[in-house]
């Protein structure tokens, strides 16, 4: 069992408020870690620090790349970091507009990532884009439409297809199924799960939906006020929570 990402003592302050207060986290290959907690608890800030889109005030983050070198992410040159984000990593944003080019066709959005890893044959790119857009349950005839005329849920599905098509090693997800209707949510969660299994992907997923966390994550991290209050096997944290905040969270779930 090998680690792929290690973060130690991450600090990030906005003004006087700690969004991340001395957080340490490690991720193993093939592991899905869920980060849960109320809004404002620092979940997304932690994810942004880990993925390099925010620079933490203190701490260190290392990543084991495809060639088995540990990279110090905070001192990594910007071009290399961008290259990582295009090839070995993927980031699925809460707001699909942050992860898509709205003026480029759906197929173009997906194809762009394939070209970044070296695809040059147009018909092959188009064939894979078609396959993936159907996997996320968007009709293939929409391939040449721009995402600006898609519904929010379709945009989110397109963003997920765009990110998964290159089979990245490490995926960061911020509320990936937040705005989706439940039928599509279930299909996408299953798709992500089977990819994790088949390709041994590692995933960090931020969500406030504990049901999503239960089905997706091997391990849960519960955050409150910028701190980790509890961590453990997902079903252990949800079935036998130890911290008073987690107990409150779990006992507040509505059952259908």
């Amino acid at each position, binding site marked *: 069992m090998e680690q792929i990402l290690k973060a130690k003592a991450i600090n990030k302050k906005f003004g006087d408020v700690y969004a991340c207060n001395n957080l340490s986290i490690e991720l193993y290959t093939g592991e899905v870690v869920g980060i849960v907690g109320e809004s404002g608890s620092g979940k997304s800030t932690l994810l942004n620090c880990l993925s390099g889109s925010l620079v933490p005030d203190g701490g260190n983050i290392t990543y084991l790349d495809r060639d088995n070198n540990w990279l110090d992410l905070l001192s990594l040159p910007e071009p290399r970091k961008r290259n990582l984000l295009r090839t070995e990593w993927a980031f699925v944003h809460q707001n699909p507009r942050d992860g898509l080019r709205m003026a480029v066709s759906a197929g173009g959005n997906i194809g762009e990532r394939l070209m970044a890893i070296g695809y040059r044959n147009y018909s092959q790119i188009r064939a894979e884009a078609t396959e993936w857009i159907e996997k996320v349950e968007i009709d293939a005839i929409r391939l040449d439409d721009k995402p600006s005329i898609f519904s929010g849920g379709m945009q989110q599905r397109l963003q997920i297809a765009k990110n998964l098509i290159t089979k990245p090693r490490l995926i960061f997800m911020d509320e990936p199924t937040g705005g989706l209707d*439940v039928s599509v949510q*279930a299909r996408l969660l299953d798709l992500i*799960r089977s990819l994790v299994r088949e390709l041994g992907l590692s995933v960090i997923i931020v969500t406030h939906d504990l049901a999503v966390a239960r089905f997706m994550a*091997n391990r849960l991290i519960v955050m409150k006020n910028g701190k980790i209050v509890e961590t453990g*096997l997902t079903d252990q944290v949800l079935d*036998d929570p*130890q911290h008073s905040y987690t107990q409150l969270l779990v*006992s507040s779930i509505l059952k259908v």
Partner: protein
Amino acid sequence: MLEVKNVAKSFNLKNLDKGKFSVIRDACFNVNSGECVALIGNSGCGKSTLMRMIYGNYVCAEGQIYIDKENILDLKAIEMSILRKQKMGYVSQFLRVLPRVSTIDLVMEPLLDQFESRARAKDIAETLLSRLNLSSQLWHLSPLTFSGGEQQRVNIAIGFSKDYKLLLLDEPTASLDRENKKIVMDMISEKKEKGSAILGIFHDKEVRDKVCDREIDVSNFSAS
């Protein structure tokens, strides 16, 4: 195979006054390979709690639980999830699965986790589902729409698809008819012969008499 030593459990509901409940103290027992042991005792005495501590979805703060001579209470979460995949199956009374995933895919999942080929996993899953009298028409549907007894059989198929060293069964035959109950009893006996250690909760005395070698009365470990 399984050794439980001086295990105690209390629940502490921190948002309540007087929210501390002791359930179990000084639980000691073991289960050998090739043996089926029943946990008995009145409802509420802690049978399922004990079983969940062994599976790791309840925290065990006191005592030791050894599986294959390894104290699982020392394991990190990632190590525990690997141990589960490799060695430990758990069949609960309730089916909790992702919606819209077909029955056959759910049964294949633990096999694929162990890098079985798709073809072989499909073969094993189909054999199990047929044996449990689930008509092949149902295999491509999600079990969430099935009847209680059908859901329970899907759960059993998922738990029995591999030869786990340790199998935990929480009322596996509770909502089954006679014929299916007999099939499940046969399946339990076969797992025993293959060397699995089985720990079960069976309210049905007929099932206990047929498949269990010993009984452990959990009310002896009661904390109250």
